[in-house]
């Protein structure tokens, strides 16, 4: 990995989206930022124009799908998408209930997944950094 890509991936703005569900995954994400100080430089933003990574949690339904696609379009390249938790990774048990529930990879090109209900917060910061590094590598 080039030194320039490494430098650029030391400042990561994450745009978290709660697509639907219990919010447990989102809590784990915020917990991971405050607990694990060896991973630095990750900030949370609410502005798609300033984001580098789209973090999707929860079950995606028809309404949230439309919003997520709209937000994804507004994030400037290079960008990465990660899916956190069982609901956004696979639709979990809610997918069995009927149509209209999507996994993140059904609607967007997902770069990384952190599975589990709820996901392990230790894995989240490392996954974010690696996903963004890969996005910069792809551009190169």
């Amino acid at each position, binding site marked *: 990995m080039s030194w*320039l890509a490494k*430098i*650029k*991936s*030391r*400042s990561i703005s994450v745009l978290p989206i709660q697509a639907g569900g219990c919010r447990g995954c989102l809590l784990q994400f915020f917990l991971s*930022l*405050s607990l694990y*100080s060896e*991973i*630095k*430089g*990750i*900030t*949370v*933003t*609410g*502005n798609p*124009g*300033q984001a*580098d990574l789209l973090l999707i949690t929860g079950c995606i339904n028809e309404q949230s799908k439309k919003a997520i696609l709209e937000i994804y379009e*507004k*994030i*400037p*390249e*290079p960008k990465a998408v990660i899916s956190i938790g069982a609901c956004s990774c696979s639709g979990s048990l809610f997918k069995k209930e009927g149509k209209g529930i999507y996994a993140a990879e059904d609607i967007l090109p997902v770069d990384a997944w952190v599975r589990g209900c709820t996901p392990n917060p230790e894995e989240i910061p490392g996954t974010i950094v690696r996903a963004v590094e890969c996005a910069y590598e792809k551009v190169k």
Partner: protein
Amino acid sequence: MLNMILWFAGIILSVFIIHLLISYLKSLFPGQGKTYILQPFYRLMKLASKKNAASQPLIQWFSAGALWFSLTALWLTVSGWNIVYIFSILIIAELFIIAGASGTNNSFGLMAVQRRISGFSITCFTLMVAASSIYKVTGTLNLGGILTMTRNKLLILRLPFTFISMIMVILVEEGVCWFDLGISGKSMSFIDTGLYSAYNGWCLAVIQLTQWVKTGIWLKFISVFLPWPQWISFTVSILIYAVLMVSDAFVAKTGWKKAVLNGFIWAGGASVINYIWLYLANI
């Protein structure tokens, strides 16, 4: 000429370094995200390499124009030009940023523009009164002339409230402490970057540079009031700025309308008090 070039480069570099320090110190507080020491530099590099995904036209020109005019104002500042002329150019730079931001379709961006204009009116009023007070004491509005008289006339003793109002202006411009027009207690957290919501990618990097240059100009203005040699005065003004920026982490936030009122009372009020005092004491 060499002296001016050194000051020009030195001001930009010193503001950059002080932002590295402030960013790192703030990250050490409990509950804050951990950052690298060079975090603002990494962010700038990242933004500069990103594409601009803005949908509205002319956004690149607005950001480039803002940087151009702020650099011009900085050059005129180190050259010792008329302060009213420098303020005018700074106002143009600010208007470029506001015009770019108002082009966004984002309602939060438009809300941020409204708040920025409120802050801008505080700055303009305070500077207008401050310039009158400075002229009353020194008889000149040229920055070079004021600098030569700083020690003889002891500006800090004759214009103490104007000095305080200039510090308040910096806080209003940066939107910190009691003058946080961006993040207010009643708004959503992502309002803090609302003014820049129209900018992204390399345009945002340019706006970030503009912000640093403007901070450098304000710090140079503050240093004019201090009686020591120029570089010592500038270092002192940087330290004052750093302390205030870090203290932002401790200050309770208020609603934006209260922040605007605070701005007018503290910055505008201090400036007016000094102006009246000059006439009453017949200095």
